[in-house]
């Protein structure tokens, strides 16, 4: 499964997705020409700094972009079906059924006034024609599956009676209740303690193999990426700048931004005296992206060309896509980048 990009039918493919927000201050290009593919049963990690458009892209896939946001262009193919062409009714059939999503804030993502059982059941009953009783049984089973003990009693509890980790499990149960083909996990563990994080990720991995689903994992945690994902897409300023398998990315990051990102994270066994890399400058304002390569103001190897010409995402070596003018022969423009 190393070379996903060669597979002919990805579970979900996003092509040139553009989601803009028409604010009073101007057009915010939150997602601006995003493309990636996710194969069946695999995990694709979408990484990048906060504000680079990761979450918006995930919501775009669910078509949950609210005004003043709008998906202006692109294709989202779910097993060949273009979601952007679907009617709202058809889309509702997809949400929670074929594609589910879990959010980064388990504390606020559950409705405080309904029991968790009620909220999970709701997902089942809206997509499947089952009796109340059966839905409840399935809900209890689902709760049990996300490893919450005493499911029979927990099912009638309210969100505020549970811890954060527990709630995230409930969110997962809710998302998986209809056995979806794709699960979008938007920073599922950021709000949780490290030990809980591990448990949740473990649970996700377990359930993934059990349900045979694809996971789009949105995160800025590179450690997590290394651990669980098969493929990685790196986003910068509303676009993907590099896309390849996880192993390849960590072994030879080609884009200067990816390189910067990787070296800014401490790794175990790193010599104590080695300084952490810092990417200079700030994330660009999505109202006014820099011309040319959007990374050029912060790029150590930028030249005049980068200011004028926008690099395209191209396959710089087999199974490895990147958007930089200076990658030649699969070599990074930054010295010593290949490890």
């Amino acid at each position, binding site marked *: 499964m190393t070379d996903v990009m060669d597979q002919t039918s990805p579970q979900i493919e996003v092509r040139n997705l553009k989601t803009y927000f028409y604010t009073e201050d101007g057009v915010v290009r939150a997602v601006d020409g995003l493309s990636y593919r996710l194969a069946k049963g695999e995990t694709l990690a979408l990484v990048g700094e906060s504000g680079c458009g990761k979450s918006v892209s995930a919501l775009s896939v669910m078509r949950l972009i609210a005004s003043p946001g709008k998906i202006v262009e692109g294709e989202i193919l779910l097993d060949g079906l273009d979601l952007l062409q679907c009617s709202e009714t058809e889309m509702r059939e997809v949400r929670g*059924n074929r594609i589910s999503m879990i959010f980064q804030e388990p504390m606020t993502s559950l409705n405080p006034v309904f029991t968790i059982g009620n909220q999970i059941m709701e997902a089942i009953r809206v997509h499947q024609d089952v009796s109340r009783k059966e839905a409840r049984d399935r809900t209890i089973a689902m709760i049990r599956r996300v490893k919450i003990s005493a499911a029979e009693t927990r099912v009638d509890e*309210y969100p505020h009676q549970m811890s954060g980790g527990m709630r995230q499990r409930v969110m997962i149960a809710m998302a998986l209740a209809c056995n979806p083909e794709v699960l979008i996990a938007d920073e599922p563990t950021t709000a949780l303690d490290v030990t809980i994080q591990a448990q949740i990720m473990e649970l996700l991995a377990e359930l993934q193999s059990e349900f045979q689903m694809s996971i789009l994992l949105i995160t800025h945690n590179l450690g997590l990426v290394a651990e669980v994902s098969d493929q990685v897409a790196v986003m910068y300023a509303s676009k993907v700048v590099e896309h390849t398998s996880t192993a390849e990315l960590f072994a030879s990051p080609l884009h200067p931004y990816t390189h910067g990102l990787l070296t800014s994270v401490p790794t175990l066994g790193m010599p104590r005296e080695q300084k952490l890399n810092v990417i200079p400058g700030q994330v660009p304002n999505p109202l006014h992206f820099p011309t040319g390569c959007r990374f050029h103001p912060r790029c150590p190897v930028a030249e005049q060309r980068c200011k004028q010409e926008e690099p395209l995402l191209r396959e710089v070596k087999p199974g490895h896509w990147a958007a930089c003018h200076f990658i030649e022969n699969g070599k990074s423009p930054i010295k010593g980048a290949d490890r």
Partner: protein
Amino acid sequence: MHTYIIRRILISIPLLFGLLTINFFLIHAAPGDPTDIFYNPDMDPEARENIRRIYGLDQPLGVQYLKYIQGVVLKFEFGYSIAKKRPVKDEILEALPNTIQLSALALLLELSLGIGIGILAAVKQQSTFDNATRVTALTFYSMPSFYLGLVLLFLFAGGVSATHWFPASGMVDIVRHESMSTLGRLGDRAIHIFLPSLTLGIGAAAGISRYMRGELLEVIRQDYMRTARAKGLTERVVVFKHGLRNALMPIITIMGLSLPFLFSGAVIVEQVFGWPGMGRVAVDAAFQRDYSMFLAVNLIFGAMVVVGNLVADILYAMVDPRVRLS
């Protein structure tokens, strides 16, 4: 829950007691006394003194106070109204249901109209409907009730002959009511209560609709709404099931707080429309220095406020699982 209610009631006792005490000394401090209604050149001043004696008005204020409290606490007696020539209890039992009827309808109007419009405005945020209702609501919210009452009265109760659709005062058609069918009586009551309850309720409804809109807009932004949508629920279910229930919670509190507002409003509205309720009794009692009546009316107003708040708290606990009464 029961212990909570009992505790709340117990707490409110000193509150009502304080209310009674302040009112007692306040009304006694005001110039005049209930026997002023005997102000008449043909009346023997001596007879007036006798009346004062019979009603204990000649005693020191402290003694009067203790006696009054004793009567209220031990025998639940509120004394006699010198101005109305009957026991205070009788007068109140006659007026209270009328005020409750008026306030209840106004409350109903306030909630149904207020919440309904608030929801529509929030759902269609920035639409023409939204803007129109916001401006209308603000106008009614900012309108003194006596003024609204006067305008309605003049427009729809005979001032303009072509639109004489409603009676100008009273609760029923006093001549024909007796001979009406059950349905007819109901209709008769309805057309009589319409203008007063509208006057009383519409300002409050405007206030609620403003709150409701704001709350719902706030709730719509919440994460759990996104979760609900992500489940594939229709927008209607999302807004009305997940959104409304959350948005309604603060409204319940406001409803509890709006009770005193409604009662105070009733004072004016009853005056304008001649509604035979507590407001008129209260104003008469204050002006006539009808001590016993004044104290009892104020006590009841206070008690209704306490009950209103209690009911709001209980309702709140019922809809919001996060709040547990203890």
